[in-house]
């Protein structure tokens, strides 16, 4: 495992291009594009103000930089550095900006969600979509980029509009049976739209592309409901995490629950492996067995090394007592992610913030629990294989694969608190983002596949 040098960064704005060749990062008002292989600066663009959001177009030709405060979006071309485009939303303001899947249109949401403006880079045409709903996840494109589903709110009722992205024509417009819709998401096959209600009511609705209601599901009433939703990449399962600390898996044939994954704090099943992160007193001879870092500058003094220990059953995990009288209590399953092969599901129960739960979807049971020393900030699956990267806001990155798990200290002077991470398309490298720095972590060494993580579990 190799680490690159540390680069500057602001507001965690660092993105790999969709084709995997480039890496865009923002430092204040400057946008830096590097080549991933060499990390040489390819282009350097200067924006009008501090960038708050960046996004690559799907064809990796353009980068969008949004400056919400100014209500301005600037677009840069990688091929033609002199080309520029500036979209000013004026007094309407700007709260969100994103690319359409074709990479030639930009969807800007104005302040107060008055409308969404669709700007075209090809023609002068501008389209407006009225009544977008101000919610967590109100815009969803199908994976093939053909359709856009948009949550709307008119006359105190929720609607979903399906647009054809090609010409922004309205394809379907239907009323959803929700009190207060907060999210919509297409299944990866683009044929089923999951719609879920706000946390006040547990309700998931599944609509076909043509607007038919396929099924609706409600697990319980009178209690806080859904907190997170995720589709499996195979479109076979819809995982719904809720405030009762459970994940419910719906299947795509009957849209009924096949299983419930509870997240108990006390584990006693001997089949489950619990990896517990433990502080390690520095032992120069024994560490770096699996991953000999090429930069042996790692200062053992500043940051305590840690390692994983397999806890013996029964195990009780550290729990957090949620404050009951505040909004958005820290409880329930708030993070959900399927591995790219749909074989594993990683979850985090917010009142056991230090633990990541990995579920085996083929056997529909808990597989592994990783208990960290500090609360888990983020976890991301390797796009190529079942390998999970976790960060906890400390200067370590944690990796899990079915073969085992390890914690790696990010080398460098001073502390490098990893707040977020993102995988490269190939799964070979990983960008680790801290508050104002980032570095790349190369997993595949030139000598070959590292023994601990290279072994796959034997499934495609």
């Amino acid at each position, binding site marked *: 495992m190799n680490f690159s040098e540390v680069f500057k960064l602001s507001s965690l704005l660092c993105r790999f291009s969709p084709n995997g060749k480039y890496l865009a990062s923002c430092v204040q008002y400057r946008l830096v594009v590097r080549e991933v292989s060499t990390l040489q600066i390819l282009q350097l663009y200067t924006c009008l103000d501090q960038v708050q959001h960046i996004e690559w177009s799907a064809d990796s030709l353009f980068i969008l930089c949004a400056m919400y405060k100014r209500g301005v979006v600037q677009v840069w071309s990688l091929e033609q550095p002199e080309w520029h485009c500036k979209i000013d939303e004026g007094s309407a303001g700007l709260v969100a900006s994103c690319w359409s899947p074709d990479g030639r249109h930009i969807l800007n949401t104005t302040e*107060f969600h008055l409308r969404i403006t669709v700007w075209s880079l090809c023609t002068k045409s501008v389209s407006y979509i009225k009544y977008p709903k101000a919610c967590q996840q109100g815009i969803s494109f199908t994976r093939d980029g053909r359709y856009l589903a948009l949550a709307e709110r008119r006359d*105190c009722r929720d609607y979903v509009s399906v647009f054809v992205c090609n010409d922004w024509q309205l394809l379907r417009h239907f009323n959803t049976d929700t009190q207060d819709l907060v999210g919509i998401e297409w299944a990866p096959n683009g044929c089923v739209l999951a719609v879920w209600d706000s946390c006040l009511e547990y309700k998931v609705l599944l609509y076909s592309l043509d607007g038919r209601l396929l099924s609706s599901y409600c697990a319980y009433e009178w209690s806080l409901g859904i907190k997170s939703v995720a589709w499996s990449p195979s479109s076979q399962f819809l995982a719904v995490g809720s405030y009762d600390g459970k994940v419910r898996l719906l299947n795509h044939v009957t849209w009924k629950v096949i299983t419930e994954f509870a997240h108990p704090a006390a584990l006693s099943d001997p089949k489950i492996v619990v990896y517990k992160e433990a502080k390690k007193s520095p032992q120069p001879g024994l560490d770096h067995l699996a991953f000999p870092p090429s930069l042996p500058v790692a200062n053992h003094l500043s940051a305590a090394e840690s390692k994983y220990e397999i806890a013996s059953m029964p195990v009780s995990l550290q729990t957090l007592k949620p404050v009951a009288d505040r909004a958005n209590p820290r409880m329930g399953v708030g993070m959900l992610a399927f591995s790219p092969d749909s074989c594993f599901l990683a979850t985090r129960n917010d009142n056991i913030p230090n633990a990541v739960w990995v579920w085996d979807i083929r056997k529909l049971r808990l597989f592994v629990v990783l208990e960290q020393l500090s609360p888990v900030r983020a976890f991301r699956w390797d796009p190529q294989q079942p390998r999970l990267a976790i960060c906890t806001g400390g200067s370590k990155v944690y990796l899990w694969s079915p073969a085992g798990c390890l914690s790696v200290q990010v080398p460098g002077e001073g502390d490098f608190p990893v707040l977020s991470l993102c995988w490269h398309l190939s799964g070979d490298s990983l960008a680790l983002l801290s508050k104002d720095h980032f570095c790349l972590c190369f997993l595949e060494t030139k000598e070959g596949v590292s023994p601990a993580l290279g072994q796959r579990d034997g499934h495609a």
Partner: protein
Amino acid sequence: MGDWMTVTDPGLPAESKTVSQYTSEKKMSPSSLYSQQVLCSSIPLSKNVHSFFSAFCTEENIEQSISYLDQELTTFGFPSLYEEPKSKEKKRELNIVAVLNCMNELLVLQRKNLLAQENVETQNLKLGSDMDHLQNCYAKLKEQLETSRREMIGLQERDRQLQCKNKNLHQLLKNEKDEVQKLQNIIASRATQYNHDMKRKEREYNKLKERLHQLVMNKKDKKIAMDVLNYVGRADGKRGSWRTGKTEARNEDEMYKILLNDYEYRQKQILMENADLKKVLQQMKKEMISLLSPQKKKPRERAEDSTGNVISDIEEDAGELSRESVWDLSCETVREQLTNSIRKQWRILKSHVEKLDNQVSKVHVEGFNNEDVISRQDHEQETEKLELEIQHCKEMIKTQQQLLQQLTTACDDDTTSLLQDCYLLEEKERLKEEWSLFKEQKKNFERERRSFTEAAIRLGLERKAFEEERASWLKQQFLTMTTFDQQSSESVKLFSAFSGSSDPDNLTVPSRPRQKKPHSMSNGSPVCTSKLTQSLPASPCTSDFCQTARSCTSEHSSINVLNITPEETKPNQVGRECTNQKWSMASRPGSREGCYSGYSLTYTSSHVEKDDLP
């Protein structure tokens, strides 16, 4: 005297009273008691022993005291102390012997009394202690009773408390339920209120938004603009198209196409899955059938189980279902059949397994009292033995391996060749041994064969001799017969001998009472007759034989005669005849001759059979 009497008489009951008093209240030694008694009896009220003792008999009142004692004693049934007076006037004299006797008897009595008293006292003591014990017991039991009563009261109290608590809890539960209901109602009302409020607020918000929209959007904000250097081409290279009804329709089409594709894909997947499942099902079915069919006969034999029918049904079904075409049918048509057959099979399997379980449990229950079950001890011993053996064998193997290793590592080519030679020699030796064994066996076989042939020859000789004998005998008979009846022709005689009902009767009936085993005879005789009918036309002289047979005393000899005649005519049938003979002979162990000939004949027959075999 009279005075004394009056004085002493009232004393007696008092004395007995005092005695009883003393014995009951004070435990005194018998001697002291005695003295007390004496004292009391003489002068009941006075306690001064010495004065009284000296007062009883003095020099002066010897006579009186003697007479008093005599009187007393006589009243108690003792003989008188005085001699019997010879004359009335004569003064009575003291009989010393009688006195002494009396004294002795008194002493004996006294001793007895003492003993009895002792016994009574010990008994009394015992009873007293018993009494104490019982009193203690009583007290204890009373205490126990008291404590248990108290306990009971306590428990009752607790029970009451618990019941109270229970009631309270019930009440609480009810309250809680009510509370929950109330809260739910409140939540519901709050929710509706909230929704209502939200709607109101949202409407306001919407109004504001609308207003804002108008304000912001309608004033032709110059700022809202896109500043592009030059427009870029579309990603797909096409030009944007106008929105028309056509595009709308096309979009619809496309959407449905996508949906259709998805459904088709899913259907394909489901079909594939179905096919796989069907395959598995078929395989399972086959296996089930193959598993169940061998048991088919058993339940039928055992009892008219319903399973038999079911199985046959299943087999039919299986026959139908195993045809591939059925599998390609849609599930609708086959489903019922399939599920039924599977269900049946499953039932059978289940019953079978249950039966097995029952058997197992039965065996368990019967356990070791079953005789053919090996007792545990034996079993353990056996296993121990076997384990030891295994250990032994393992050691052997180890040593052998070691040796082998040593050999393989240590020895060079010479030794290996030598070793090989050794092995070859060993092999040769073994082969030789086997060869010699084989030879010996061969020899044995030869010997046996020779003995067989010898026996056959001997039999032949014997037969010849017998035939000669018989021929001579026949000749004699014939000669006598010819003198008797010369005109009748032989053929006619033959006919009459066998077509006539009397003759075969004569042949069999007289033989019957002589038979020890009638069934063997009945078996034997038809053979004979059939043989005769077969062979008779060829041999004209057999009619005579029949007659001779009739006259013959022993059945066996007649059969012999009858069977031998065809042998003369049909020599190629020897083997069969011989076996027949042997058979009939063997069934008649009564006659010695039969036994012998039978014995010899078996040899020949086997010999002949042997010859026939190749």
